[in-house]
């Protein structure tokens, strides 16, 4: 146990040198635990850990820590996501202690989508600290046993610290440096934004490898299978920081009626096959948005099953 920072399944899988495979679960816009359990059922056995999103796109949902606890009850390992939009440093630190006390071992640190996108655009945001500072906060609490004010913590939150990286947002030249900054701040693993522009991602990974970042941190490549041409167009046009090449949209269009979703899955599987071979990539983070039931099939066809036990 002591050889690990957290002892989470995800950490063990990565440390053992296995190619990790993580999934995602968006909590419901309601209090129905059965909804979370149903999604969990699709993911169980197919992934090493499940990201639980935190009011993603600034839409109010069941809190990420609460949905994470339901996953724990179902025998899945959550990767608890926390955004800085809705909490100040007091709430952030107390939630970190609370989730650890309940058995959560992975945490992904994010700034959070601006509330302007969501269903409460009139809200006041917090952004007391940013994602970089959040990473550093968790690391300080875990490794130095200190709160942000320097006070000692009794009972340390031994969390496996995750961070996000978007290789496609501008300015591109700075992105790999921002990744380095997150790793230096304390990130143990990185999950990237959904990748569609493979050429650009190869370039980004080459930069990361040249800087030796893959040796300091596990980088998981983000994959979201396209369900339809409409989804691809929407992502290309309306999701900031997303890079969807025209060639992919054309490929999906060319699949013909009723076969677009299958083509989207095929593309995702081709990506996963390439990531397995790509230097510096330690795993895949599969974000099958409201398509959790497809995860076992994708995992099977991508040769990710059975998941290793460490």
């Amino acid at each position, binding site marked *: 146990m002591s050889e690990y920072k957290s002892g989470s399944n995800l950490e063990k899988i990565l440390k053992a040198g296995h190619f990790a495979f993580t999934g995602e679960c968006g909590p419901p816009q309601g209090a129905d635990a059965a909804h979370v359990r149903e999604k969990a059922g699709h993911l169980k056995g197919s992934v090493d850990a499940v990201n639980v999103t935190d009011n993603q796109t600034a839409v109010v949902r069941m809190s990420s820590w609460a949905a994470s606890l339901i996953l724990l009850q179902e025998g899945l390992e959550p990767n608890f996501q926390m955004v*800085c939009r809705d909490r100040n440093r007091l709430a952030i630190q107390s939630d970190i202690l609370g989730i650890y006390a309940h058995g959560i071992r992975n945490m992904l640190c994010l700034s959070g989508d601006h509330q302007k996108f969501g269903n409460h655009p009139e809200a006041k*945001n917090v952004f007391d600290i*940013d994602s970089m500072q959040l990473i550093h906060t968790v690391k300080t609490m875990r490794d130095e046993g200190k709160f942000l004010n320097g006070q000692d913590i009794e009972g340390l939150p031994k969390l496996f610290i995750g961070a996000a990286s978007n290789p496609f*947002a501008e*300015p591109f030249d700075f992105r790999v440096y*921002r990744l380095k*900054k997150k790793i230096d701040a304390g990130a143990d693993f990185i999950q990237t934004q959904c990748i569609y522009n493979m050429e650009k991602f190869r370039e980004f990974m080459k930069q990361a490898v040249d800087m030796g970042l893959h040796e300091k941190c596990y980088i998981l490549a983000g994959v979201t299978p396209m369900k339809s041409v409409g989804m691809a167009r929407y992502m290309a046009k309306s999701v*900031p*920081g997303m890079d969807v090449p025209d060639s992919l949209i054309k490929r999906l269009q060319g699949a013909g009626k009723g076969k677009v979703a299958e083509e989207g899955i095929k593309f995702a599987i081709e990506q996963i096959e390439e990531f397995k071979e790509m230097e510096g990539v330690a795993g895949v983070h599969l974000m099958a948005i409201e398509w959790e039931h497809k995860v076992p099939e994708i995992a099977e066809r991508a040769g990710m099953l059975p998941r290793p036990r460490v």
Partner: protein
Amino acid sequence: MIVAEPKPIKELLEMVKDFNKILILGCKGCVTVCNVGGAKEVAILASTLKIAAKKAGRAIQVEGHTLERQCDPEYVAEIKEMVDNYDALISLACGVGPQFLSERYPSARVFPGVNTRFMGGAVEHGVWSERCAGCGQCVIHYFGGICPIARCSKSLLNGPCGGSDHGKCEISKDVDCIWDIIVRKMMDQGRLEELIEFKPPKSWTTARDGGPRKLVREELVR
């Protein structure tokens, strides 16, 4: 300067609909510069109120007066002989003005005639843009002389976030991603190393989060 904009005329008319003797007070400070609360705007609003009242079949008395500043007690005191002749005062100054008036003239009914928006400047004729969030501890020199607290939608000190899109912020294509500008400028200046340095959490004690603010300069206090 402090940038303000006129309150919608409908809202203003509704505010003062029960008053017959109205004094509109302009300010020669920031609101004159941003064309919202100087002598000219005072005259225009006076005419507008009179016309609206006439249409509604009411005869009202509206006068205007523009003070040197509404954020200094000595100028606010200048109108002490006038105030009692009116049953409503409309201030076209920033949010400070109507409060100084309310404090100096406790029995007067004071209404804000403008919406105070931010601290900024004119970037072109008729267009103003925010520059300062008044956090009380200026740090712009770390960021190429640009303030990410006021100008990044998330006030990130270690930006840019993943929502930066071709130089624009994720919240709107009309908003520049200030971190895109900071990064490009600092890289041009050969200051990449500084950009990669971790910026720790900021103390917000000197910002509004520390409670209502008051500044005492001992050397100026008699």
